[in-house]
């Protein structure tokens, strides 16, 4: 627990610091998803959440941050890569759905998308 945050500029940072950034992104994403009525806003929230998770993955796998017994190797980065790719795929699908919904309902307000049939 030594010097977690004091003298941030003169001491190395740890995984925990990255995770805090990840947590911030994650939370922002969650809040975004919870509060935006625009479907695209929700989509952006999802992106943020995934990004927050990615930061964690990268940080845990980083040999700069972990001690000598770090054993993750490239696993963290590979996971992050997959997440990125899946996020891209998911973004594409979501966008497509949104456009479809916009075409049928004339709006991207998800509050109106409360029926399974468009």
């Amino acid at each position: 627990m030594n010097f977690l945050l004091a003298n941030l500029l003169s001491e190395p940072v740890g995984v925990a610091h990255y995770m805090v950034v990840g947590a911030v992104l994650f939370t922002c994403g969650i809040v975004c998803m919870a509060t935006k009525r625009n479907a695209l806003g929700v989509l952006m929230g999802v992106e943020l959440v995934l990004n927050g998770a990615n930061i964690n993955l990268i940080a845990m796998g980083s040999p700069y941050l972990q001690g000598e017994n770090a054993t993750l190797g490239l696993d963290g980065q590979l996971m992050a890569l997959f997440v990125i790719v899946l996020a891209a795929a998911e973004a594409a699908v979501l966008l497509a759905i949104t456009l479809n919904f916009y075409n049928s309902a004339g709006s991207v307000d998800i509050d109106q998308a409360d029926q399974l049939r468009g």
Partner: protein
Amino acid sequence: MDLQTWLPLLLGLAWLLPLASFAIVSIGGSLPQIQGHHASYRSQKIAGVVASAACGASFLLSLLAMAIWLTNHPLGAEHPGGHPGTAHAPPHYSGDFYSLASFGDLHLAIGYYIDTLTVTMFCMVTLIATCVHVYSWGYMHEELADVVDNEVATRDGKALHRPGRYHRFFQYLSLFTFSMLGVVIAGNLAMVFVFWELVGICSYFLIGFYIERPSATNAANKAFIVNRVGDFGMLIGLMTLWSSLGTLHFDQIFPQLAEPASAGGLSYPLLVVAGIGLFCGCIGKSAQFPLHTWLPDAMEGPTPVSALVHSATMVAAGVYLVGRCYPIFVPEVLLVIAVVGAITLAMAATIAITAVDIKRVLAYSTISQLGYMMLSLGLGGWVAGLFHLITHAFFKSLLFLCSGSVIHAVHTNDLREMGGLRKKMPWTAYTMLVGCLAIIGAGVPAWGIGFSGFFSKDAILEQAWSFAGANPAPVYGLLLWVPVAGAMLTALYMFRLWYLTFAGEPRNADRYAHAHESPLSMIAPLVLLATLAVSIGWVWPFSELSVTSLLEQARPAGTQETVQGEWLSSLTIPDEHLSHAPEIQVPAGWTTFSAAMGGLLLATMTYLWKWLRAEEIRQSFRPIHSFLWNQWWFDELYDWTLVKPTLWLSRFFASIDHWLIDPLVHGITHVSRLVARLLDSLLDRRAIDGSLHTLADQTWNTGLSLRQLQSGSLRQYVLFLVAGTLGLFAVASLYWKFAVAG
């Protein structure tokens, strides 16, 4: 220099000067009334100056005492708390001014107990009192002439006209200052109790200053009676100590407590009773849950009073007393103190969010901050709690005086009618911003710079962190997270207050148009207090002098150790010095910081940027809002569970007299009258058989002759009665004399 003579002399003088000013003002103000006049404009003005001068002189004397103290007890030289295990008392001087009574080995006296805490408190109280006095010159100036009180209608429906009471205000302020200093200097608990009640009555007078307003007098009554409920507990604490130890002097209690029960100490259950009893008094005075309801109502008093009495000094007396009596409290009692503090701070903070009266928001924030202090003391943070007391005194009096300045300008307390005032009254707005930043503990943890509240609140959170670390049970963890959440709420409601008052657009154009910056006598104290609100937590440049180092010198013996509970063996109250370790300090600092920033952000989003609309939030959380708006329904609860039953009970007791005892007495008299009549008639018959008529004639004649005596003059009758009695005695004594002799 001989401190044993000089300190009592200086502080005693500083203590008595306000009393002298009270006497002068009250007698001087009453003399014209004997002639049927009211005090003149000039003499009222003089009264204000006299009271303020006395107060200022007290401050200078206190400073002198502080200087003398520091030259004789350099800081850091004596650190009773520095070495765990050494249990000697901090440097102090105690003695008696005069004795109240002594019975055998029992002594009650008016005395003094002076240590660094006393001197520090003296400086703080007199300084703030002086500021408030000066501020009141401006704030109360309307009272100099006849006043039209628009809040009170007389019988004919017009606003009330009454003579001004400027001098009365200063009279009460002086008496209050005297009483408060009495609490601080007190050398024994009996004296504390005496002045405890006196500050209570001063508060009663000051809350009820506008005696014509029913709300003010109700609030005054409520304040005093609720305080009495606390004092009831305090009396029990006093009785426990008094009956077991035979003394109430601090310098005799503390060493005796260390002894086992067999050697004149107290048994553990009695210690718990004594501790909780004393704390009850503090609950009442410091408006802690569940006796907090009087303080928001106390805002009926003039604003300078709220600044001095109901935020900075009197309500802090409870915290002071807990600090003073610290060795009496065993870990279980400390836990009670901490829990009460935590409940209070959370409850008051939530209520403050919805209040719309500018002074009520501040009142609840006061309650909440007092909760922090209690929490800190309860968790073992002795210096932290008292440090927060000192810093809080400065920024809270500043906030109240600023609010007073606003009220003075717009003539309303309602936040909904303000807005945009920073353009009209920049001095007030920015000094108040300083106060807000101080109370939320603004500062940068990594660099260790910030407003005064930053240091004290951090110290409290550090101790809470340390406590949570020492007690892994999750329940104890609440005592850490509640204050953290409280820090967020503090930032939220304080900045809500500031934004609603000063930012945005004016919501009431009329009031805005008439608003104006306050006169110099009000601005000057604001600036002074704002300076102190920023800097009181700092270390004096090029020295060790700081409030914390002063308090550290007064740390009571026995608090420098980590202690375990006896009944709750899992309870550990950690040594306060452990909380200064960086592995506690750093996360605690950042946690507080982020909580405060979160609250600040939320307030800004809602009230400045208006991303969140307060009205909509109110709609969506209607039940919660009405719960908070009605202050958790405490008033209603007490009304139904306590006040009404008491009145019913009183009516019941009164009717016992009327329906039980009196009829019984009447019955007995009726029966005896019947018996008498019965005997009478029996005798009559016999008399008829005898020579009734002769007797009647005789009686008639005698009656005629005796008629002369029946003059109808009562005093004669009485004289006859007395003479007859005396005669009877004389005859009886003569008769018996012969009887014995014969």
